[in-house]
């Protein structure tokens, strides 16, 4: 399995093309936030940009706190959401150590990166890449 990494954020120009692409293609929305990858400036634009995105933890700390098993660990890291099971408690968002789960107050659903890579071709500055997950790297 491959996972999304925001490897070159020093190059980011803050165009939000990645977030907008995820919102558009995955969440059928126009949004800055309803997106698996969210770009922030850290205190004014002169300090550059940071990306908030799921790290594909393995095992993921968000999954076990889900009371309904709506969120399940994925092979190779990260999680899958079964929407119909979600009771909108937002425990997963609280549990994520890097704030990568955004709990959308509008539709009461958690939003996170599913490592599909659809944002990657929209980044004009090659900040993002899909890389092999840790599990795939053979032990030395």
């Amino acid at each position, binding site marked *: 399995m491959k996972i999304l990494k925001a490897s070159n954020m020093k190059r980011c*120009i803050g*165009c939000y*093309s990645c977030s907008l692409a995820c919102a558009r293609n995955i969440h059928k*929305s126009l949004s800055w936030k309803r997106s698996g990858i969210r770009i*922030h400036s*850290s205190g*004014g634009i002169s300090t550059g940009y940071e990306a908030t995105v799921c790290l594909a933890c393995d095992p993921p700390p968000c999954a076990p706190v889900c009371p309904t098993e709506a969120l399940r660990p994925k092979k190779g890291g990260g999680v899958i959401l079964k929407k119909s099971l979600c009771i909108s408690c937002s425990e997963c968002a609280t549990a994520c150590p890097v704030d990568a789960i955004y709990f959308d107050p509008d539709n009461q659903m958690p939003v996170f990166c599913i490592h599909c890579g659809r944002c990657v071709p929209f980044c*004009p500055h090659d900040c993002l890449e899909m890389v092999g997950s840790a599990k795939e790297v053979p032990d030395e």
Partner: protein
Amino acid sequence: MNKPFRVLVVNLTQQKSKVEFFDTRKQWLGGSGLAAGLFENYADFDQDPFHPSQPVIFAIGPLTGLFPLMSKTIMSFMSPYNGQYAESHGGGRSALALRFAGYDALVITGKAQRLTCLGFGSKEINIQDVHFLKGLDIFKTGKVLRTLKPRNPGHRSILRIGPAGENLISYACVNVDTYRHFGRMGGGAAMGAKNLKGIIISGDSSLELPSDTLKEYNKVYQSIYKTITESGAVKKYHNLGTPENLIPLNELKALPWRNLQSTHDPEIEGISGETFAQDLLLRQVACAGCPVGCIHIGLLRERFGDEHEYLYRQVSYDYEPIFGVGSMLGVTTASGVLTLLEEVEKLGLDAISAGVALAWATEALEKGIVTTEQTIAELAFGDVHAYVEALACLSGKINDFYLHLGKGALNAAYVYGGEDFACVLGQEMAGYATGENYYVSQALGFRHSHLDTGAYSFDQEEQARDMEVAIKYMQDQEYYRILMCSAAGCLFGRKAYPREVFIKALKSIGLEYSEEELDATILSIQAHRWAIKFRTGFKPEEIKIPKRFSEVETWKGKTDTDYMMKLKEKYQEVLREVAARHKFQEK
């Protein structure tokens, strides 16, 4: 999707706000069109620009956030510079923030009793007292505003004015997200007159895309995105950026130097786009929703101690500002230009207007029309330190001289003399000494901007002195630019958005126009804008093209004054006819 526009209307006198629904999208499209419609609705044509009742308007377009490069906000107001209806366009995150806050436009009326900041998002509106920010520069103001409501780091847009705006300098600008501006025509003073120091827009909501057209929308998006990221025409804005024009224009003998005393100078190397890029470029940034990223940030390094002690600052640069405080003031080093740009930025002035006004003052001092007692700073072309001092005087209205200069170079010239060499075409000239078509076009242009009709480009064509062709060119360009600005797109995206692409894009989000309908809409917006401009006092026949423009030599040789005056007369008539198409409704 042809529903009314959702507009946030804030009255600062009453400290109250409300959500209003205004007309239909099909009629006004958005951006420039919507701003004009709202202006007619809210303005008091018979009052002066600083009257509390005058609205300050920010409008976005139907495609904002939905398509790449649809990233501008149109600000409209009664200009403190000339008392007429004016528009200014700014980017940064402002447009998307307004979209995600849930509004198509923001209208601010009234005047706050104390210095105020307006902050709002989709679920909150705060009118906050910020009297403690009085007189603070743009940078310090930004720091404080970032701590105010709505607190939502990362997805806010912050608009703010500096001392120039507070002091009602006629060409004070509004700073947007540090590196972009609503420049020209005095939007900063329009905000200053309302005691409005800043606006914080939080883009905190999400919108569902229309499911019935989603497939088509994604397809159109994909193809536009491809054109933008793959076509060389747009890419150039990212590479050297607009400063790539400095050398070519200098070679064409079309770059104004030292108050337009010449159009070419061998010292161009020092301030060329190449020099900036090689020596000072730190990085590029983008407006939200734009993959081009034309905003170039330079590194200004300054030694402050005897030992090797340096401090650094990040200053954005572009072609026009480099012309304004560079070639026009005879400053021939890139770091000198950045020093001045930083100062201009800090004070909240428009870089072009401030530069051109000081260029006039420098020549006036050289010629003995004014004295150093008046100018305080010992203005001399190329002297960066003198200009730093003068900029502070200018934004602080330190004496009568700067009071007059703060109303424009031609205004000061009416008082002291020296009208012949005031480089003013409706407002301080932009950086294209390309020839007669451009001079007339800026002088009579809607925004008095080189972007109104792009006539500087036509000057470089073979039929450049054919009046019929010139007028057709200018009118066609104006049509297109009104379309682009009503969609509220960045004019750098022109190559990616021919008219048929607009029609497709609009259709893919449920706004259907036939070619004829779109034409009718744009022509009606055009008539409307011009009618308001005339109604607020635009008298083209009274606008002078100062003698300096007749003395200019370009690669074509001397200015053809005869052609220029004839073109001006003819173009005046054309504009009158355009404006006459619009009939005002009784209020």
